[in-house]
Protein backbone atom coordinates (compact mmCIF):
# COMPACT_ATOMS: atom_id res chain seq x y z
CA UNK A 1 0.00 0.00 0.00
CA UNK A 2 1.40 3.32 -0.91
CA UNK A 3 -0.57 6.50 -1.10
CA UNK A 4 2.00 8.82 -2.59
CA UNK A 5 0.35 11.27 -4.98
CA UNK A 6 1.21 10.77 -8.62
CA UNK A 7 3.04 14.03 -9.11
CA UNK A 8 5.28 13.27 -6.16
CA UNK A 9 6.09 9.91 -7.67
CA UNK A 10 6.82 11.52 -11.00
CA UNK A 11 9.06 14.27 -9.62
CA UNK A 12 10.79 11.80 -7.38
CA UNK A 13 11.59 9.38 -10.18
CA UNK A 14 12.61 11.95 -12.75
CA UNK A 15 14.40 14.67 -10.79
CA UNK A 16 14.85 14.19 -7.04
CA UNK A 17 16.06 10.62 -7.25
CA UNK A 18 17.08 10.60 -10.87
CA UNK A 19 17.85 7.02 -11.85
CA UNK A 20 21.21 7.87 -13.32
CA UNK A 21 22.43 10.70 -11.15
CA UNK A 22 21.17 9.53 -7.76
CA UNK A 23 20.74 5.75 -8.10
CA UNK A 24 23.48 5.07 -10.65
CA UNK A 25 21.10 2.94 -12.67
CA UNK A 26 21.74 2.73 -16.38
CA UNK A 27 25.26 4.09 -16.14
CA UNK A 28 26.50 1.89 -18.98
CA UNK A 29 24.29 3.46 -21.64
CA UNK A 30 24.71 6.81 -19.88
CA UNK A 31 28.44 6.65 -20.48
CA UNK A 32 28.28 4.71 -23.70
CA UNK A 33 25.61 6.46 -25.73
CA UNK A 34 26.02 10.04 -24.55
CA UNK A 35 28.61 11.04 -27.13
CA UNK A 36 26.16 12.14 -29.77
CA UNK A 37 22.97 14.01 -29.06
CA UNK A 38 20.85 12.35 -31.72
CA UNK A 39 21.69 8.86 -30.50
CA UNK A 40 21.25 9.88 -26.89
CA UNK A 41 17.73 11.16 -27.32
CA UNK A 42 16.72 8.05 -29.24
CA UNK A 43 18.23 5.82 -26.61
CA UNK A 44 16.35 7.80 -23.99
CA UNK A 45 13.13 7.25 -25.87
CA UNK A 46 13.81 3.54 -26.23
CA UNK A 47 14.59 3.17 -22.53
CA UNK A 48 11.50 5.12 -21.52
CA UNK A 49 9.37 2.90 -23.69
CA UNK A 50 10.94 -0.28 -22.40
CA UNK A 51 10.54 1.00 -18.85
CA UNK A 52 6.82 1.50 -19.23
CA UNK A 53 6.43 -1.93 -20.76
CA UNK A 54 8.57 -3.53 -18.04
CA UNK A 55 6.65 -1.70 -15.39
CA UNK A 56 3.40 -3.18 -16.65
CA UNK A 57 5.01 -6.61 -16.88
CA UNK A 58 6.42 -6.36 -13.38
CA UNK A 59 3.09 -5.30 -11.96
CA UNK A 60 1.41 -8.32 -13.51
CA UNK A 61 4.12 -10.74 -12.50
CA UNK A 62 4.15 -9.46 -8.96
CA UNK A 63 0.42 -9.97 -8.65
CA UNK A 64 0.77 -13.54 -9.94
CA UNK A 65 3.70 -14.33 -7.66
CA UNK A 66 1.82 -12.99 -4.65
CA UNK A 67 -1.12 -15.15 -5.59
CA UNK A 68 0.93 -18.33 -5.85
CA UNK A 69 3.11 -17.25 -2.91
CA UNK A 70 6.40 -17.68 -4.72
CA UNK A 71 8.37 -14.46 -4.05
CA UNK A 72 11.60 -16.27 -4.75
CA UNK A 73 10.76 -16.40 -8.44
CA UNK A 74 10.57 -12.62 -8.63
CA UNK A 75 14.03 -11.94 -10.00
CA UNK A 76 14.02 -14.74 -12.54
CA UNK A 77 10.59 -13.96 -13.87
CA UNK A 78 11.26 -10.21 -14.08
CA UNK A 79 14.45 -10.79 -15.98
CA UNK A 80 12.89 -13.30 -18.34
CA UNK A 81 9.84 -11.24 -19.15
CA UNK A 82 11.77 -8.01 -19.54
CA UNK A 83 14.37 -9.66 -21.76
CA UNK A 84 11.73 -11.02 -24.08
CA UNK A 85 9.93 -7.68 -24.12
CA UNK A 86 13.12 -5.96 -25.18
CA UNK A 87 13.57 -8.59 -27.85
CA UNK A 88 10.15 -7.65 -29.18
CA UNK A 89 10.98 -3.95 -29.08
CA UNK A 90 14.17 -4.67 -30.95
CA UNK A 91 12.32 -6.54 -33.68
CA UNK A 92 9.74 -3.78 -33.82
CA UNK A 93 12.33 -1.04 -34.23
CA UNK A 94 14.23 -3.07 -36.79
CA UNK A 95 11.10 -3.29 -38.84
CA UNK A 96 9.80 0.24 -38.37
CA UNK A 97 13.00 2.24 -38.54
CA UNK A 98 16.14 0.56 -39.85
CA UNK A 99 18.04 3.84 -39.44
CA UNK A 100 17.10 4.04 -35.78
CA UNK A 101 18.06 0.43 -35.38
CA UNK A 102 21.38 1.15 -36.98
CA UNK A 103 21.98 4.20 -34.81
CA UNK A 104 21.29 2.33 -31.60
CA UNK A 105 23.19 -0.64 -32.95
CA UNK A 106 24.70 -2.69 -30.20
CA UNK A 107 22.92 -0.78 -27.47
CA UNK A 108 19.46 -2.25 -27.90
CA UNK A 109 20.46 -5.70 -26.67
CA UNK A 110 22.20 -3.90 -23.82
CA UNK A 111 18.87 -2.56 -22.63
CA UNK A 112 18.09 -6.14 -21.66
CA UNK A 113 20.87 -6.09 -19.17
CA UNK A 114 20.26 -2.48 -18.26
CA UNK A 115 20.02 -2.16 -14.53
CA UNK A 116 17.70 0.83 -14.89
CA UNK A 117 14.98 -1.40 -16.31
CA UNK A 118 15.28 -4.14 -13.72
CA UNK A 119 15.83 -1.57 -11.00
CA UNK A 120 12.60 0.14 -11.93
CA UNK A 121 10.70 -3.14 -11.71
CA UNK A 122 12.20 -3.97 -8.33
CA UNK A 123 11.73 -0.49 -6.87
CA UNK A 124 8.11 -0.23 -7.88
CA UNK A 125 7.47 -3.58 -6.27
CA UNK A 126 9.32 -2.61 -3.10
CA UNK A 127 7.41 0.65 -2.88
CA UNK A 128 4.12 -1.16 -3.37
CA UNK A 129 2.84 1.06 -6.13
CA UNK A 130 -0.48 0.29 -7.75
CA UNK A 131 -0.85 0.04 -11.50
CA UNK A 132 -1.24 3.74 -12.23
CA UNK A 133 1.47 4.71 -9.79
CA UNK A 134 3.76 2.17 -11.42
CA UNK A 135 3.23 3.58 -14.87
CA UNK A 136 3.78 7.13 -13.66
CA UNK A 137 6.90 5.96 -11.90
CA UNK A 138 8.14 4.31 -15.08
CA UNK A 139 7.44 7.36 -17.22
CA UNK A 140 9.14 9.60 -14.66
CA UNK A 141 12.17 7.35 -14.42
CA UNK A 142 12.41 7.06 -18.19
CA UNK A 143 12.16 10.80 -18.72
CA UNK A 144 14.66 11.40 -15.94
CA UNK A 145 17.02 8.96 -17.59
CA UNK A 146 16.52 10.66 -20.94
CA UNK A 147 17.08 14.07 -19.38
CA UNK A 148 20.35 13.02 -17.79
CA UNK A 149 21.48 11.33 -20.99
CA UNK A 150 20.59 14.27 -23.19
CA UNK A 151 22.18 16.85 -20.89
CA UNK A 152 25.31 14.75 -20.83
CA UNK A 153 25.33 14.38 -24.60
CA UNK A 154 25.05 18.14 -25.10
CA UNK A 155 28.03 18.74 -22.87
CA UNK A 156 30.05 15.93 -24.39
CA UNK A 157 29.43 17.14 -27.92
CA UNK A 158 30.88 20.48 -26.91
CA UNK A 159 33.76 18.83 -25.08
CA UNK A 160 34.57 16.89 -28.23
CA UNK A 161 35.76 20.21 -29.66
CA UNK A 162 37.64 21.20 -26.52
CA UNK A 163 41.29 20.53 -25.93
CA UNK A 164 40.96 18.22 -22.98
CA UNK A 165 44.07 17.36 -21.00
CA UNK A 166 45.42 13.94 -21.98
CA UNK A 167 44.69 12.21 -18.72
CA UNK A 168 41.07 13.34 -18.69
CA UNK A 169 39.87 11.93 -21.97
CA UNK A 170 37.12 9.33 -22.12
CA UNK A 171 35.25 7.92 -19.18
CA UNK A 172 37.00 9.99 -16.55
CA UNK A 173 35.71 13.32 -17.83
CA UNK A 174 32.25 11.86 -18.39
CA UNK A 175 32.16 10.75 -14.76
CA UNK A 176 33.26 14.18 -13.57
CA UNK A 177 30.54 15.86 -15.62
CA UNK A 178 28.06 13.34 -14.23
CA UNK A 179 29.24 14.25 -10.74
CA UNK A 180 28.65 17.95 -11.34
CA UNK A 181 25.25 17.20 -12.88
CA UNK A 182 24.47 15.09 -9.86
CA UNK A 183 25.37 18.01 -7.60
CA UNK A 184 23.13 20.20 -9.73
CA UNK A 185 20.26 17.77 -9.39
CA UNK A 186 20.61 18.00 -5.61
CA UNK A 187 18.84 21.28 -6.05
CA UNK A 188 15.66 19.32 -6.67
CA UNK A 189 15.87 17.65 -3.26
CA UNK A 190 12.70 18.02 -1.27
CA UNK A 191 10.56 18.77 -4.30
CA UNK A 192 7.17 17.17 -4.01
CA UNK A 193 7.59 16.72 -0.27
Amino acid at each position, binding site marked *: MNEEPLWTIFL*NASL*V*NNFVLAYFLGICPFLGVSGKLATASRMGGAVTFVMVVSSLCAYGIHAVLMAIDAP*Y*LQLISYIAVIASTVQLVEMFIKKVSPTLFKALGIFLPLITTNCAILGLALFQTNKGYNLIQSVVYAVGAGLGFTLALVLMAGIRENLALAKLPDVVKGTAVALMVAGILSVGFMGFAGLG*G
Partner: protein
Amino acid sequence: MDAVAKGDSPLEMYRALVGIGVVCGLLIVSVFQGTKPIIEANKAAALERAIFQVLPAAKQSKTFAATDDGFKLLEGPATGPLVFGGYAEDGSLVGLAIPAAGMGYADTIRILYGYSFEAHAIVGMVVLESKETPGLGDKIASDPGFQANFEALDVSLSADGSAPVHAVAAVKHGTKSNPWQLDSITGATISSKAVAAMLRESTTTWIPKVEKHKADFMNPGGAK
Protein backbone atom coordinates in the same frame (compact mmCIF):
# COMPACT_ATOMS: atom_id res chain seq x y z
CA MET B 1 30.30 -25.31 -36.21
CA ASP B 2 29.37 -28.07 -33.91
CA ALA B 3 27.24 -25.75 -31.78
CA VAL B 4 25.27 -24.44 -34.72
CA ALA B 5 24.43 -27.91 -35.91
CA LYS B 6 23.36 -28.83 -32.41
CA GLY B 7 21.25 -25.71 -32.00
CA ASP B 8 19.29 -26.55 -35.09
CA SER B 9 17.35 -29.12 -33.17
CA PRO B 10 14.49 -27.55 -31.20
CA LEU B 11 14.41 -30.59 -29.03
CA GLU B 12 17.92 -29.89 -27.79
CA MET B 13 17.01 -26.29 -27.05
CA TYR B 14 14.02 -27.30 -24.98
CA ARG B 15 15.98 -30.01 -23.26
CA ALA B 16 18.66 -27.52 -22.33
CA LEU B 17 16.30 -24.82 -21.13
CA VAL B 18 14.10 -27.16 -19.18
CA GLY B 19 17.10 -28.85 -17.70
CA ILE B 20 18.62 -25.59 -16.57
CA GLY B 21 15.26 -24.38 -15.38
CA VAL B 22 14.78 -27.42 -13.20
CA VAL B 23 18.23 -27.17 -11.69
CA CYS B 24 17.85 -23.45 -11.05
CA GLY B 25 14.39 -23.89 -9.60
CA LEU B 26 15.67 -26.53 -7.23
CA LEU B 27 18.52 -24.29 -6.19
CA ILE B 28 16.31 -21.30 -5.50
CA VAL B 29 13.60 -23.16 -3.69
CA SER B 30 16.03 -24.99 -1.47
CA VAL B 31 17.88 -21.81 -0.57
CA PHE B 32 14.59 -20.02 0.00
CA GLN B 33 13.26 -22.75 2.24
CA GLY B 34 16.54 -23.08 4.03
CA THR B 35 16.87 -19.41 4.85
CA LYS B 36 13.20 -18.59 5.39
CA PRO B 37 13.01 -19.36 9.12
CA ILE B 38 16.23 -17.51 9.80
CA ILE B 39 15.12 -14.45 7.85
CA GLU B 40 11.75 -14.39 9.51
CA ALA B 41 13.32 -14.70 12.92
CA ASN B 42 15.70 -11.89 11.99
CA LYS B 43 12.88 -9.67 10.86
CA ALA B 44 10.77 -10.38 13.93
CA ALA B 45 13.72 -9.68 16.17
CA ALA B 46 14.44 -6.43 14.37
CA LEU B 47 10.84 -5.32 14.67
CA GLU B 48 10.69 -6.26 18.31
CA ARG B 49 13.91 -4.37 18.94
CA ALA B 50 12.36 -1.31 17.37
CA ILE B 51 9.17 -1.69 19.42
CA PHE B 52 11.09 -2.03 22.64
CA GLN B 53 13.13 0.99 21.68
CA VAL B 54 10.10 3.24 21.31
CA LEU B 55 8.37 1.73 24.32
CA PRO B 56 11.25 1.44 26.75
CA ALA B 57 9.18 -0.28 29.41
CA ALA B 58 7.87 -3.01 27.11
CA LYS B 59 9.21 -6.53 27.35
CA GLN B 60 6.83 -8.33 24.95
CA SER B 61 4.97 -7.28 21.87
CA LYS B 62 1.87 -8.22 19.90
CA THR B 63 0.83 -7.22 16.41
CA PHE B 64 -2.62 -5.81 15.74
CA ALA B 65 -4.39 -5.13 12.48
CA ALA B 66 -6.70 -2.16 12.20
CA THR B 67 -10.25 -2.97 11.19
CA ASP B 68 -13.29 -0.79 10.71
CA ASP B 69 -14.45 -1.34 14.26
CA GLY B 70 -11.28 -1.50 16.24
CA PHE B 71 -8.15 -3.61 16.36
CA LYS B 72 -7.65 -7.34 16.08
CA LEU B 73 -4.71 -9.44 17.04
CA LEU B 74 -3.03 -10.31 13.77
CA GLU B 75 -3.27 -13.88 12.59
CA GLY B 76 -1.74 -14.87 9.31
CA PRO B 77 -0.56 -12.42 6.66
CA ALA B 78 -1.03 -8.68 7.13
CA THR B 79 -3.96 -7.16 5.29
CA GLY B 80 -4.22 -3.58 6.50
CA PRO B 81 -2.37 -1.03 8.61
CA LEU B 82 -0.64 -2.55 11.60
CA VAL B 83 0.04 -1.28 15.09
CA PHE B 84 2.07 -3.05 17.70
CA GLY B 85 1.17 -3.39 21.36
CA GLY B 86 3.94 -3.33 23.89
CA TYR B 87 3.46 -5.15 27.20
CA ALA B 88 5.38 -5.28 30.39
CA GLU B 89 6.65 -8.54 31.79
CA ASP B 90 3.43 -9.01 33.75
CA GLY B 91 1.40 -8.61 30.55
CA SER B 92 0.07 -5.15 31.32
CA LEU B 93 -0.21 -2.76 28.39
CA VAL B 94 2.68 -0.30 28.18
CA GLY B 95 1.72 1.44 24.99
CA LEU B 96 1.50 1.16 21.26
CA ALA B 97 4.15 1.30 18.55
CA ILE B 98 2.72 2.93 15.44
CA PRO B 99 4.45 3.15 12.05
CA ALA B 100 4.36 6.37 10.05
CA ALA B 101 5.85 7.48 6.78
CA GLY B 102 6.24 10.63 4.76
CA MET B 103 8.33 12.33 2.12
CA GLY B 104 11.64 13.55 3.46
CA TYR B 105 14.43 15.50 1.86
CA ALA B 106 15.41 12.79 -0.57
CA ASP B 107 12.94 9.95 -0.35
CA THR B 108 10.27 8.46 1.85
CA ILE B 109 11.15 8.30 5.54
CA ARG B 110 9.61 5.45 7.57
CA ILE B 111 9.49 5.70 11.32
CA LEU B 112 8.00 3.87 14.26
CA TYR B 113 6.84 5.81 17.29
CA GLY B 114 5.69 4.72 20.69
CA TYR B 115 2.47 6.04 22.23
CA SER B 116 1.78 5.87 25.90
CA PHE B 117 -1.90 5.75 26.95
CA GLU B 118 -0.90 6.83 30.38
CA ALA B 119 1.07 9.94 29.40
CA HIS B 120 -1.00 10.78 26.34
CA ALA B 121 2.33 11.39 24.70
CA ILE B 122 4.81 9.98 22.25
CA VAL B 123 7.52 8.33 24.25
CA GLY B 124 9.94 7.17 21.61
CA MET B 125 10.73 7.24 17.90
CA VAL B 126 13.01 5.17 15.68
CA VAL B 127 13.75 5.67 12.02
CA LEU B 128 13.15 2.44 10.13
CA GLU B 129 14.15 3.66 6.72
CA SER B 130 15.54 6.93 5.40
CA LYS B 131 17.76 8.11 2.62
CA GLU B 132 18.31 11.49 4.23
CA THR B 133 21.61 13.25 3.70
CA PRO B 134 24.23 11.38 5.68
CA GLY B 135 25.72 13.43 8.43
CA LEU B 136 22.86 15.88 8.30
CA GLY B 137 19.32 14.71 7.66
CA ASP B 138 20.04 11.24 8.95
CA LYS B 139 20.65 12.75 12.36
CA ILE B 140 16.92 12.37 12.94
CA ALA B 141 17.80 8.81 13.85
CA SER B 142 20.79 9.51 16.03
CA ASP B 143 20.93 13.09 17.28
CA PRO B 144 20.47 12.92 21.06
CA GLY B 145 18.97 16.39 21.16
CA PHE B 146 16.40 15.47 18.58
CA GLN B 147 15.66 12.12 20.17
CA ALA B 148 15.05 13.95 23.43
CA ASN B 149 11.96 15.44 21.80
CA PHE B 150 10.36 12.03 22.03
CA GLU B 151 10.81 11.47 25.74
CA ALA B 152 7.35 12.98 26.15
CA LEU B 153 5.86 14.63 23.09
CA ASP B 154 2.39 15.77 24.02
CA VAL B 155 -0.41 14.50 21.78
CA SER B 156 -3.26 14.52 24.31
CA LEU B 157 -6.66 14.56 22.70
CA SER B 158 -9.20 17.33 22.79
CA ALA B 159 -12.32 16.92 24.93
CA ASP B 160 -14.37 15.28 22.20
CA GLY B 161 -11.53 12.89 21.43
CA SER B 162 -11.44 13.69 17.75
CA ALA B 163 -7.90 15.00 17.41
CA PRO B 164 -4.88 16.05 19.46
CA VAL B 165 -5.33 19.47 21.06
CA HIS B 166 -2.03 20.68 19.69
CA ALA B 167 -0.68 19.50 16.38
CA VAL B 168 2.94 18.36 16.49
CA ALA B 169 5.11 21.03 14.92
CA ALA B 170 8.83 21.53 14.38
CA VAL B 171 10.40 24.77 15.57
CA LYS B 172 13.82 26.26 14.99
CA HIS B 173 16.59 24.70 17.01
CA GLY B 174 16.66 25.97 20.55
CA THR B 175 13.23 27.58 20.54
CA LYS B 176 11.13 24.67 21.85
CA SER B 177 8.83 26.02 24.50
CA ASN B 178 5.85 23.64 24.52
CA PRO B 179 5.65 19.88 25.02
CA TRP B 180 4.07 19.38 21.59
CA GLN B 181 6.89 21.06 19.73
CA LEU B 182 9.84 19.42 18.04
CA ASP B 183 13.21 21.05 18.49
CA SER B 184 14.75 20.88 14.99
CA ILE B 185 18.30 19.83 14.22
CA THR B 186 20.53 22.66 13.05
CA GLY B 187 21.16 22.28 9.33
CA ALA B 188 18.58 19.51 8.98
CA THR B 189 15.44 21.55 9.19
CA ILE B 190 13.79 19.77 6.26
CA SER B 191 14.20 16.32 7.74
CA SER B 192 13.07 17.56 11.16
CA LYS B 193 10.00 19.11 9.64
CA ALA B 194 9.31 15.95 7.67
CA VAL B 195 9.30 13.94 10.88
CA ALA B 196 7.00 16.48 12.51
CA ALA B 197 4.68 16.37 9.52
CA MET B 198 4.37 12.61 9.44
CA LEU B 199 3.84 12.51 13.21
CA ARG B 200 1.19 15.20 12.95
CA GLU B 201 -0.63 13.31 10.26
CA SER B 202 -0.27 9.93 11.90
CA THR B 203 -1.32 11.08 15.36
CA THR B 204 -4.36 12.88 14.00
CA THR B 205 -5.47 9.66 12.32
CA TRP B 206 -4.45 7.07 14.86
CA ILE B 207 -4.49 8.51 18.37
CA PRO B 208 -8.28 9.15 18.41
CA LYS B 209 -8.84 5.66 17.03
CA VAL B 210 -6.57 3.78 19.41
CA GLU B 211 -7.91 5.75 22.39
CA LYS B 212 -11.44 4.83 21.37
CA HIS B 213 -10.60 1.16 21.06
CA LYS B 214 -8.14 1.06 23.92
CA ALA B 215 -9.89 -2.00 25.24
CA ASP B 216 -8.91 -4.03 22.19
CA PHE B 217 -5.31 -3.90 23.36
CA MET B 218 -5.98 -4.53 27.05
CA ASN B 219 -6.89 -8.14 26.70
CA PRO B 220 -5.61 -9.36 23.39
CA GLY B 221 -6.27 -12.94 24.36
CA GLY B 222 -9.95 -12.09 24.82
CA ALA B 223 -10.21 -10.84 21.30
CA LYS B 224 -9.64 -14.31 19.99
